[in-house]
């Protein structure tokens, strides 16, 4: 495994639309693309828009039968893998099927077309969603704080300093921690060194960490955030391996309480 190339984590290859451009037009979906797929689409409307746009159709003039067939193939795949996620997609599938059957009925008078065209409601929703999808992209592409813009601040020099107690809220603390964790995670996705992630090395690292103490070590201490999400799992599994080999003891005093690890003294 040490020779494996860094995995392309979905989060890092996902630029909406682009990662999927390589998919064959005939809807064959390679199995490993499924996860990318699930993370890429925001829901049935998003998927429909993708199918329509990919083939350059106008929202207002969808070839319904074709889109329905394509949509159902995607939904089938999702059902196969992650049934729970498909609920919203299934509702849409039912709606599409109904539209399709109504389209097959004899045509109505042209002047009543808006009310009676079974596509009208769907088209309205698709348009509405697309507007906000686009707005979200537009907002995201504008300069904002912490990315392009930074607040300018300088130190306050006070010749007769009074003690000013700075303040913070619990919420500030949570946001700060999330940001810092997220940042370290993003960094990792770009610089994971697979060489450092072998299970044997992890097991050795853990044993080194606990061999000189008969005390319990906090579970969290075995995880090096710089090693990425995969690193976390390798660490976790390395601990499981050690438990199985009776090398370490893992203790959790109450449900959801903190977990501690100690070397097995026997």
């Amino acid at each position: 495994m040490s020779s494996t190339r860094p995995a392309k984590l979905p989060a890092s290859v996902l630029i909406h639309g682009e990662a999927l451009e390589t998919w064959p037009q005939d809807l064959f979906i390679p199995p490993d693309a499924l996860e990318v797929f699930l993370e890429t689409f925001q829901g049935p409307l998003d998927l429909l828009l993708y199918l329509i746009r990919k083939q350059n159709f106008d929202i207002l003039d969808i070839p319904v039968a074709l889109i329905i067939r394509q949509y159902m193939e995607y939904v089938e795949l999702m059902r196969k893998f992650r049934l729970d996620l498909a609920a919203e997609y299934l509702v849409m599938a039912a709606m599409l099927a109904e539209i399709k059957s109504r389209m097959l009925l004899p045509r109505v008078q042209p002047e009543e077309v808006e009310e009676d065209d079974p596509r009208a409601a769907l088209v309205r929703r698709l348009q509405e969603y697309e507007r906000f999808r686009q707005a979200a992209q537009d907002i995201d592409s504008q300069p904002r704080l912490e990315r392009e813009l930074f607040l300018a601040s300088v130190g306050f020099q006070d010749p007769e300093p009074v003690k000013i107690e700075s303040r913070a809220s619990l919420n500030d603390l949570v946001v700060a921690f999330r940001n810092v964790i997220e940042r370290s995670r993003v960094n990792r996705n770009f610089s994971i060194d697979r060489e450092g992630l072998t299970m044997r090395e992890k097991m050795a690292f853990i044993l080194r960490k606990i061999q000189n103490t008969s005390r319990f070590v906090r579970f969290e201490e075995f995880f090096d955030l710089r090693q990425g999400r995969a690193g976390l799992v390798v660490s976790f599994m390395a601990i499981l391996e050690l438990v199985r080999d009776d090398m370490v003891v893992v203790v959790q005093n109450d449900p959801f309480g903190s977990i501690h690890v100690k070397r097995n003294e026997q």
Partner: protein
Amino acid sequence: MSSEAPRSELKNIIESLLVVAEAPLSLSAIQSVFDKDAAPRSDEVEAAIRELQCDYESRSIEVKKIGNGYRLQTRARYAQWIRKLLAGRPPKLSRAQLETLAIIAYRQPVTRGDIEQVRGVAVSPEIMQRLLEREWVRHAGVRDVPGRPELFVTTPQFLAYFNLESLGDLPPLMEQREFAEVAEDLAKDSGLSPPVEALPDVQASDA
């Protein structure tokens, strides 16, 4: 400030306030640091801020108006060096977060149901939680319908983070074409086979 103090001194005082403030400063916040009888009029403060803005023309910082306040910020073209200093990548927002935020921003006040209606998927509690935590969004009462669902609106911090003077600065929403306009096209098309020629992309109408 004594009234004889030169204009440049007013400018400097304002600058010194802007460089230590952590949120945009309103004219009245600036006026409030002066003794009552020495406080500059708000048009004087505004003029001084305009002068500051000119002074910064060729510099790395600029005055930006956010809501009814002013703040100092670095210009976007210096981000590349600043980011290296601060290390780490800028926080990224997920599409779900951005879409939810966009719907709230353009349609406020909205309920969770409104958001779900537009996006076609359930709004996860986590997404709302994040937006509330960042204080970009807040609760704003309930809608007076059965179930009394909670309403959400954006906050001044939303404007501040996204560098907007007001909600009017949001990028314009794509125009919505009326279904009726193209009803004729639809009538012509059987609907069961793709049109021979693809129509121009709707997105193109988004300037």
